[in-house]
């Protein structure tokens, strides 16, 4: 059991890393893009926008904690 837990922990660290909000934001952005793309609205801008916003939030949090 502890080995399975260790493997899951390793996979989590390997893929998700230090800030789980980044992975969550990417999943939500991909899902939202898929939903909106079914309509005729152009949605290519959503993913880059989410990347910039979530990365800003993530690094800003580290800076704020340090200060």
């Amino acid at each position, binding site marked *: 059991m502890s080995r399975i837990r260790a493997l899951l922990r390793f996979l989590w660290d390997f893929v998700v*890393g*230090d800030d789980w909000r980044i992975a969550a934001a990417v999943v939500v952005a991909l899902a939202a893009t898929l939903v909106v793309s079914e309509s005729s609205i152009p949605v290519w801008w959503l993913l880059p926008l989410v990347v910039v916003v979530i990365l800003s939030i993530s690094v800003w949090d*580290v*800076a704020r904690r340090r200060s």
Partner: protein
Amino acid sequence: MSGTQAGLVVAVFIACAVEATEALTIVMAVGVTRSWRSALVGVGVALVALAALTAALGPALTALPINVLRGAVGGLLLVFGLQWLRKAILRASGLKSYHDENAAYAEESRAAGDAGPVAPGIDPYAFFVSFKGTLLEGLEVVFIALTFGSNQKDVPLAAAAAAAAVLVMVGIGVLIRAPLARVPENTLKFVVGVMLTSFGTFWGGEGVHAHWPGGEVALPVLIAGYLAFALIAVAALRRLQTARDEVLSRPVRA
């Protein structure tokens, strides 16, 4: 070779060169301190495990429908790339310590020296440390090469770029017989973070039916845009650090 293929080769080569540099430091430290034979056997077993993983996952990935592949694997690549870019921004702005191969080598050597007498034959410590180091750094190489290769439907090209990077770094390591401290690892990680994030955004977006304006032309635009954003973020965080240091260094008035 198309622009996307050239980008694939550059991104995979640089990413793998960085990982190979880190693995080489670990293997050199246990090889010099304990046993070269055991360290190299550890590397060999790890390479066999990585090759088996690649052989199992490669065909499975390329068999997926292209949109599923790009949505899922592009998304994974994007998450992975954002991790690299986040760390690179934090390092460049002074919020996270730089990776130093000389320091890593000294630390590994000290730990190897403290691990008791060297066993005759295969030394378990040297074997497992070099096996683990090669496997963990190699997993990132496999992940990057497979995600890039499968998305581009050209796993052999990605594998060739990865193998070339490993051979070049090992060759340099053998020649200079020291950790590759002069490799500008932190700068390379910054570049890799931007590339992985850009390719992940491009492929992930295509996988969920986003139509990029200009098609493949959007990829260099994404790379330039993310690079500009990352540099601005570094500059802003450095200013913040400087302002904070100035406030902290002011004398406190009674």
